[in-house]
């Protein structure tokens, strides 16, 4: 098993790779620095980035290897992943101005195809956050959280020795909210707390400081963005669902909306498997 970090020579891919490095370190897996040669990326910049990551890996005695592929980036990576046993792929993603259906970025293509590994798609807004990540937040909808997502969140928490927060947002309508008094609200939130309590136990066992916070909101994205701006988080982890690229014509996915306006570095975690 290993952890793969996709490098393109940009500062953002270097940051994504550093997150990968810390994830690999905590699991004691080797780190593979992967690049697909293409005319858009300067090979000098790529080599410089790889050098920087290798230097950082050396501090932790972490094995690091370089892999340079050729061909169409997404296809080359997909083929590579199917041939080699890997655990997770870290890659950076770029700002999305508007929804595109053609000419998708590397990370967008990867998020839309079936892969045998998990995918951590990193949107970087603060280059230096990897140096001091003290607080990590994972917003979820009500009590919807998979074990895999929690494990990834917990691993990042342990890697950085950071405190974690699971921010549960319950979406409701204006009228329903009008009918909720303090007692009703507490009951709803208590129910969610009860359902998530085993994760609390798990966090204790893993020795990760974890707390749960709740919100009842009319709009989950606005609520999460408000929470991020109000608190001093350094990393946000969100769960992503693999959709085929042209399947979400109806509107933006919540992840896209979050990644667009996030004030903190954000990792969208896509579980391995088929697209819906």
């Amino acid at each position, binding site marked *: 098993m290993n952890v793969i970090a996709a490098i393109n020579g940009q500062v953002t891919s270097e940051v994504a790779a550093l997150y990968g490095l810390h994830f690999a370190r905590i699991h004691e897996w080797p780190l593979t620095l992967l690049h697909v040669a293409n005319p858009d990326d300067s090979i000098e910049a790529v080599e410089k980035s790889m050098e920087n990551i290798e230097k950082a890996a050396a501090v932790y005695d972490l094995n690091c290897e370089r892999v340079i592929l050729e061909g169409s980036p997404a296809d080359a990576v997909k083929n590579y992943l199917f041939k080699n046993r890997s655990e997770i792929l870290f890659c950076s993603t770029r700002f999305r*101005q508007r929804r595109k259906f053609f000419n998708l970025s590397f990370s967008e293509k990867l998020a839309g195809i079936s892969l045998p590994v998990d995918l951590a798609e990193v949107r*970087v807004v603060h280059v*230096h956050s990897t140096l001091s990540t003290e607080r990590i937040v994972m917003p979820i909808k009500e009590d919807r959280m998979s074990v895999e997502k929690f494990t990834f969140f917990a691993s990042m928490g342990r890697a950085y020795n950071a405190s974690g927060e699971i921010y549960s947002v319950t979406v409701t309508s204006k009228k329903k909210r*009008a009918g909720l008094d303090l007692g009703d609200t507490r009951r709803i939130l208590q129910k969610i707390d009860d359902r998530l309590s085993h994760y609390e136990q798990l966090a204790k066992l893993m020795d990760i400081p974890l707390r749960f916070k709740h919100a009842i909101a*009319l709009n989950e994205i*606005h609520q999460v963005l408000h929470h991020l*701006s*109000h608190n001093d988080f350094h990393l946000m982890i969100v769960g992503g669902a693999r959709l085929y690229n042209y399947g979400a014509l109806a509107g933006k996915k919540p992840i896209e909306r979050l990644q*667009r306006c996030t004030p903190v570095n954000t990792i969208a975690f896509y579980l391995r498997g088929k697209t819906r």
Partner: protein
Amino acid sequence: MKVFMQDKTDLLQSLKSSEKGLHTSQVSRRQQEFGPNVLEGAEKKNYLLSYFKEYVQFFAVLLEVAAALSFIADRFAPGQGNDILGYAILGAVIINATFTFWQEYRADKAMEALLKLMPTLVNVRRDSKTSAIDSKELVPGDIMVLDEGDKVAADGVLLDATSLYLNLSSLNGESAPASRNSEPSSQKNPLAAKNMVFAGTTIVSGSGVAVVSAISHATEFGKIASLTKNVQKSLTPMQREIIRITRILTIIALIMGLVFFVLGLFSAKGALMASIFALSLIVANVPEGLLPTITLSLSLASQRMAKRNALIKNLDSVETLGSASVICTDKTGTLTRNEMTMRAIWLTGGELINISGEGYLEPGEFSFEQESKTGEARLVEMLQAAFYNCKAVIDGANLRGDPTELAIVAAAHKKGIREASGKKFREHVFTSERKMMSSVYEIDGETRLFSKGAAEVLLEICTSYLDSDNKTQPLDDAFREKVSRQAEVFENEAYRVLAVAMGEGESEEDLTLLGLVAIMDLPRAEVPKAVELCKRAGIRTMMITGDNAHTAAAIAKKIGMAYDNIINGDELEEISDDKLETILAQEDILFARMASNQKLRIATALQNTGEVVAMTGDGVNDAPALKKSDIGIAMGKSGTEVAKEAADMILLDDNFSTIVAAIEEGRTVYFNIKKFVTYILSSNVPEIVPYILQFFLKIPLPLSVIQILSIDLGSDMLPGLALGSEKPEKNIMNRPPAGSQEKILDWEVFKRGYFFVGVIEAAAAMGAFISFLLLHGWQYGTIELADPYLHRQAMTMTLLGAISCQLMNVWTMRSWEFSAFSLGLFSNPLLIGAMVIELAWIWMLLYVEPVQNIFNTATVPLQDLWILVPFPILLFFSHEFYKWRKRRKLLRVTA
């Protein structure tokens, strides 16, 4: 390690940049990766869609179905006025939708005001060349070249700084410029790091070069914008109540309609007649005029509030004010006058002098606490020394300069000191590090130096003092201790203390201490009364100030603001949200040394404990808290545009007592709405009962649906509005906050509206109808009258029975608890106007043919109208008796 902790080389390396700037090829790629440096404004509302949504609300759909069925009925049985009914119902739907839309939607311009703080052009060094570029093209790693007057477009770390001062007020509310340097910082908080510059701030002086570390939403300013934009406001108590009222009344209407539809089917009336009958009942039950009346009433109240210096931006806020249970207020300018006043002087001879007068006004007296021979001369000498050190100017109403200096100048003016007798030729400037300043004068050929500053600093450089005989004495440690003790006494009373000294020559050495001055920003005269009023009204008041706990506590004591505990800004950071909620649920807290961004936490925690929060603010960074709180209150005089746009109410005079006055007005509106809801519900009974009786008894139809609508949307509206503008009840500020215990639609409203006044009105309507028919030869059992004109006259009597009772109802409903006789006949001019119009309306129903044709009415002989007289009188006195009994019961309980 944080970005501002790195040294220059590491910083540039990690951002893959250099002092020469980024290469053009790097820039375009980074623009793709990081996106543009723009803050997204508020999402544009689709007003048309929002307006149409009002037509698919359950309430509206119900009436739309009724209108559709009226048109269908007109198709099958034309000429019976069902088409007019259909149009009238549709009219009611349009009126309701329009008023609801008007009340709920308004342009949110807070984000627009915030975005104006961002520059459009910025000087950037790329490929070793400096040029002005569009600020949205900035990327992390870019080198910004900053100069005096520039607005900063992104967060950055300074690589070089020359006498750089930054105005950080948009982020921390501090108006004093903050010095910057390029040394790596060891602070935890980026705002405290002196080598950082931030988006949305301005370079006050100096110049510098900074590397961009964050752009767009990732900047500190972006966070404030995001907090302002994405805040999700809770529903106001009124919105909750309207939803609740609509739900309850709709359920009642539906159940009643359904029951009578089923009964209609079994009574062989046919499905169409049964459904029309059921819909008539639904229309009768639905108070169509409720929402327009509430909206208009709130609108009138907001105009009254504007006259009391409270400018309401959002209509719902009028009523929310009445529900406010906590006021979180700033200190400076709101509780206090924001004018420093010198209140006391201590001379080194041991004399304590009190000074009267307020603010910067000249009238005022100096009164010595002990007799002193030379005291007056030394007092003048000291005031001169302090005055010679001031640059502030008071020229009538025209004030210029620092508030503390203005206080000194005002005190000097009181003693007749208006200008220096010598010529100033040098100044040792004040800095926050030195904590003192001095001015050197040439007076009568001699060089004299006058100093003022912190007592502990001047005590260090003074070597002598003037004793009570006006003789110079050496300043020993014992006397230093005495001066320090006196300074402490003043500080304990929340005074700002300055020491004043003078000396020979130009240097700040071997000075002679003259005394201490005690200066304070005094509480506004009307504030203690307002705080007391809040206490009686069950409203908690909490001070949130940037000042220290000492000053905050002293001011709280002076204005009578009770508190259980003081929490400092640093302590608040250590308290978890849950703990804070627990504390705020149990204790009244005085918040000292607070940063503005902590207000949002306090507002959220209070709301989570069920409080309705009114919060004041003036800075850009107050905007999120103002938007989050139930009532955001911006300062009209000292507030920024962003704060004003984010707030629900603007205080034109920045005065705390205006908030309390506005709360009183809000409570009045709340209870007035309660009164007219009862008033409107009362008329539902005479609208419903005729249908029920016609169903069970063999009588002609007493009231048509169009006549029901003429009551709901016609004759009830103006008196309802007049009730909405009634003056406050005598005990309005002795009750708990509106909505906390007493809902608008509670059992008492039902009891009075439906089962007390409503029953009398129904008896009046039916009494008038049956009496009129009997007087004109009708016999029980005749359903179809041979003379249709007689039927219209009888229906007119039913209508007039209900309207005449409502005319009297509005007079007795003017007070919920007190006698109508105690209110004064002409104290509500709007009500007199409404009465005149109502009487004109009745005349039109009786005598104007086009009106009669629309509303199915007819002329009734004057000799028959006497039937209507007893019921309104009965209603008035029985409701007055009801209120009297309530008052007596309350008195007994209180006793």
